């Protein structure tokens, strides 16, 4: 069955990729045909206005070849329109009269070639390395000359290339969404029925006829469920009929003896088996992260609408406030969210989290003032935090220890896939729908994620959440006293976050702007980090689970993060930065997913005592310190040593922390008794 699923995944992925590539290629061809003439119209408009000025002079009796200041005027026009590489005015006989930029060109198109292009209408054609627009100068019904305006073909090509990058971005983003949805569907058609039927048959093999299989809505593999259920129902009915008949004591004794190896369900009950597969929570989680990320690209502008001078503070501070409040509430909510998730169960806490997020988003869209907005963003962060921790807790609770790193990597890659797709699509949607409607759409998607959990995430009756005690300060103390927990948190997790926020989120956008890149390029270059995580982390984590020795993966990840900083220090360019960001993504794909799995492995006792959700919550809260420290450290270093110094500094922080982490764990290996004592 696994073979069938793999083949179906391969077939669908191939179909998706091929059809998406074909569609994108067709779209790109249309754009390449439609946009360059539109670009040429701008140049023609410039030519038109130049021609108009010249005509006026001509009407005043100044012959075309005696216009004083014409050369200076053409220079001014070219300065105003930096896209135009040259302007050349030739007379009716083809002799050049005035030029701007033409003579200075090494690869200028020859006059003969330009002459070939001369027609009675404005025309654009490619002449050598330029797109040349010819504007005929017809003054008082006489053709007196031609104005040639040249745009570098490379510039037009670059603009078309920009559009092709957009097409590729759209392709990647839509494929990410489709692949997540396909995985969800295939799970419910094949993987889930297979898993639950296996569990059911294993129970029956032990003589347990007390459970039924769930109804299969899609009638995939689960079409066997109805038949298996019929057999179980029949056996239970006959057993219950015997029980109802009662009979003498010796009969009851006989019945007990005869059926002692079997288990049946109580009359009137219909217990159903469910399987907890990781992919059940993956799509709803993706959907919620996607929903919340839709507003990422325009949120600062949205907040800016609420700014007024009467507030008495800088607009930049006002814009940053709701984002900071969101991050702050999200971080603070984590330990409590984890504890609540442990107590209430994953299904309930995810639904509650998604509902709070939905309400928060609806109210955000309807906010009337900055104060409303701050309140509603805090509410959204609460829900978001609850979903975030619940998903992690579900992932670590429903995975065998041998697969824990892989499942955390899947969590990480789903988070980045949702975040990346949401922010990329949000900008486009807001252009069409407006800010408020896009945020309302986010709310709708967040509600849909709750509906998916309601419909698809079930837990077995015998695996209900175990009630735990309330969160206390002692939980923090217990965890922080554990040397291994502290080493992983302070020497691996926090430095990773410092590199993420200090380098990627804070320094990179500023530095790319400094290198002369526009916002689109910045977005695309930064996408490399998310893509590296999405595509690499599941594979690396699979390897980590197979090999074991998770702490070496954490260490390698730390060293690779340091190397990423040194790359940009040595190769100071946009390409260097792209390489550096990609390497940081690879580093985090290697080193970040094993962190929580390592805590679960090495700190088993304390995890059992505190509860897996609470441990995850506290770990994520402390880890957020790195998020706060990152921009501060980067800011100070940039101010003192410039960007390169800052990159080097962040690299040194990573290097030192990773080296201490490695040394500490080597010491734990050599002195296991001390490590145990430390845990106790």
């Amino acid at each position, binding site marked *: 069955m696994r073979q069938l699923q793999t083949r179906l995944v391969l077939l669908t992925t191939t179909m998706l990729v091929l059809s998406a590539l074909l569609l994108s290629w067709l779209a790109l061809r249309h754009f390449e045909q439609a946009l360059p003439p*539109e*670009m040429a119209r701008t140049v023609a408009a410039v030519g038109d206005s130049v021609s108009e000025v010249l005509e006026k002079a001509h009407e005043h009796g100044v012959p075309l070849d005696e216009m004083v200041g014409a050369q200076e005027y053409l220079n001014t026009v070219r300065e105003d329109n930096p896209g135009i590489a040259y302007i050349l005015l030739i007379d009716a006989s083809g002799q050049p009269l005035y030029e701007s930029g033409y003579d200075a060109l090494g690869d200028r198109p020859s006059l003969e070639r330009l002459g070939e292009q001369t027609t009675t209408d404005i025309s654009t054609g490619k002449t050598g390395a330029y797109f040349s627009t010819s504007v005929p100068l017809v003054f008082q019904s006489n053709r007196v000359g031609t104005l040639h305006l040249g745009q570098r073909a490379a510039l037009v090509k670059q603009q078309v290339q920009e559009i092709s990058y957009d097409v590729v971005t759209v392709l990647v983003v839509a494929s990410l969404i489709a692949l997540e949805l396909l995985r969800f569907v295939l799970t419910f058609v094949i993987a889930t029925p297979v898993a639950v039927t296996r569990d059911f048959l294993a129970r029956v093999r032990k003589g347990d006829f007390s459970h039924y299989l769930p109804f299969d809505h899609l009638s995939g593999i689960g079409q066997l469920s109805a038949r298996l259920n*019929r*057999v179980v129902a029949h056996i239970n009915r006959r057993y219950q009929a015997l029980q109802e008949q009662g009979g003498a004591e010796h009969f009851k004794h006989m019945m007990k003896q005869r059926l002692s190896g079997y288990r049946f369900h109580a009359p009137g009950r219909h217990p159903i088996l469910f399987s907890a597969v990781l992919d059940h929570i993956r799509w709803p989680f993706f959907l919620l992260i996607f929903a919340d990320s839709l507003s990422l690209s325009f949120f600062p502008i949205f907040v800016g609408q609420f700014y007024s001078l009467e507030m008495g503070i800088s607009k930049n501070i006002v814009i940053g406030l709701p984002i900071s409040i969101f991050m702050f509430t999200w971080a603070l909510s984590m330990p409590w969210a984890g504890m609540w998730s442990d107590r209430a169960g994953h299904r309930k806490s995810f639904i509650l989290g998604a509902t709070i997020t939905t309400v928060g988003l609806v109210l955000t869209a309807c906010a009337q003032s900055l104060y409303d907005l701050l309140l509603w963003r805090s509410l959204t962060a609460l829900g978001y935090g609850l979903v975030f921790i619940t998903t992690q807790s579900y992932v670590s609770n429903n995975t065998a220890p041998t697969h824990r790193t892989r499942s955390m990597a899947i969590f990480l890659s789903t988070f980045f896939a949702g975040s990346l797709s949401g922010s990329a699509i949000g900008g486009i949607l807001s252009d069409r729908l407006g800010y408020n409607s896009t945020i309302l759409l986010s709310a709708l998607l967040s509600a849909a994620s709750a509906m998916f959990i309601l419909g698809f995430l079930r837990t077995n009756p015998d695996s209900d959440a175990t009630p735990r005690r309330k969160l206390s300060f002692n939980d923090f103390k217990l965890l922080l006293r554990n040397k291994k927990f502290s080493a992983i948190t302070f020497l691996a997790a926090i430095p990773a976050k410092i590199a993420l926020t200090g380098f990627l989120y804070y320094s990179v956008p500023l530095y790319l702007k400094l290198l002369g890149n526009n916002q689109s390029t910045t977005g695309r270059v930064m996408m490399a980090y998310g893509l590296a995580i999405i595509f690499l982390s599941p594979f690396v984590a699979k390897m980590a689970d197979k090999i074991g020795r998770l702490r070496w993966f954490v260490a390698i990840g730390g060293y690779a993060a340091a190397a990423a900083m040194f790359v940009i220090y040595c190769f100071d360019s946009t390409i260097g930065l792209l390489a550096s960001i990609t390497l940081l993504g690879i580093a985090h794909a290697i080193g970040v997913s094993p962190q929580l799995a390592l805590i679960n492995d090495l700190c088993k006792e304390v995890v059992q005592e505190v509860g897996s959700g609470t441990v995850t919550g506290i770990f994520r809260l402390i880890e957020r310190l790195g998020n706060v420290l990152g921009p501060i450290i980067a800011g100070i270093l940039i101010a003192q040593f410039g960007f390169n110094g800052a990159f080097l500094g962040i690299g040194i922080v990573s290097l030192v922390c990773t080296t201490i982490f490695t040394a500490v764990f080597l010491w734990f290996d050599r002195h296991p008794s001390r490590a145990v004592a430390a845990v106790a």
Partner: protein
Amino acid sequence: MHFRCMSTLRHFVNCIITSCQKLMNVLANDINIQSRTQRREGVLWRRIGALLTFIIALALILISFLNYSNYRKNYQELNLTRHLVLSKNLRQNLETGLNIGLNPEENVRLLPAIKEMLHRHTDIRYIGVAQESGALVGEGDIPAYTLAGWRAWQNKTNADAYWYTGDSQTFQIGFPYVNNFNVKAGAVLIVYDKSAIERATGDMARKLGQDVLLTTSLLVALTLGGVYALTHKFSRQLASIGNTIDGALDAAAPAKLEVHVLNGDVAQDINDFAALSHAVVRDLVELERALGLPEHESGGRT
């Protein structure tokens, strides 16, 4: 004697009729099971195929929608750039006039220049110069309500910037100009038609829509064919597993699946299930007999 013969004959005929009825029922049941099995075999590939095709088609629609939105944005920006060039040109004329002391209403070349620009650029519906004093020099048709709106835009736009807005029919650009003292003295206004842009982007939407239809048609054929090829054998095996499960209760001995079915491990699981179910039912039957319960009272299969 005659009576006994008649009675035996009647009994014989009845037996034949009953046997025929039973045979008919069995045949009908067999045919029913066969068609049901075929239906089930068909259900699997059709449903999986339909679901997968639906999701990929959704992705293709999303790709086209996003590409179209990007194209539309680019197209609008190119149009904006072109009209900004024209605005800059007009502003330059205006500032040249101001340099020699000519206010817009005194500049006799202004209105003809505006008319000429309108004549050359058919997509422009209005060109005007709005002065800080409130006076307006312009040409073209423009809804009255925009005039009031411009004042507000003019007040909040810096001299070195421009504003860009629109309504259901037009896009509007405002480009402030300065006087000799470098103080904002008014703004050049250009209002251009949305319909030409809508037409061009609409054409692109149609092209992209056709591409989606073409790609989806190819995709449907290939995906359904692929899913059928992958699941056909599997469906048959599922059907034979179903028959084994159905026979777990009634048959004298539980039916056994061949070990190669679904890589063997599932076949073993199902065989175990059938054997165990059969054994439980046998135990239950013996207990029913011990209690003297007729078999039909103990709950028939549904």
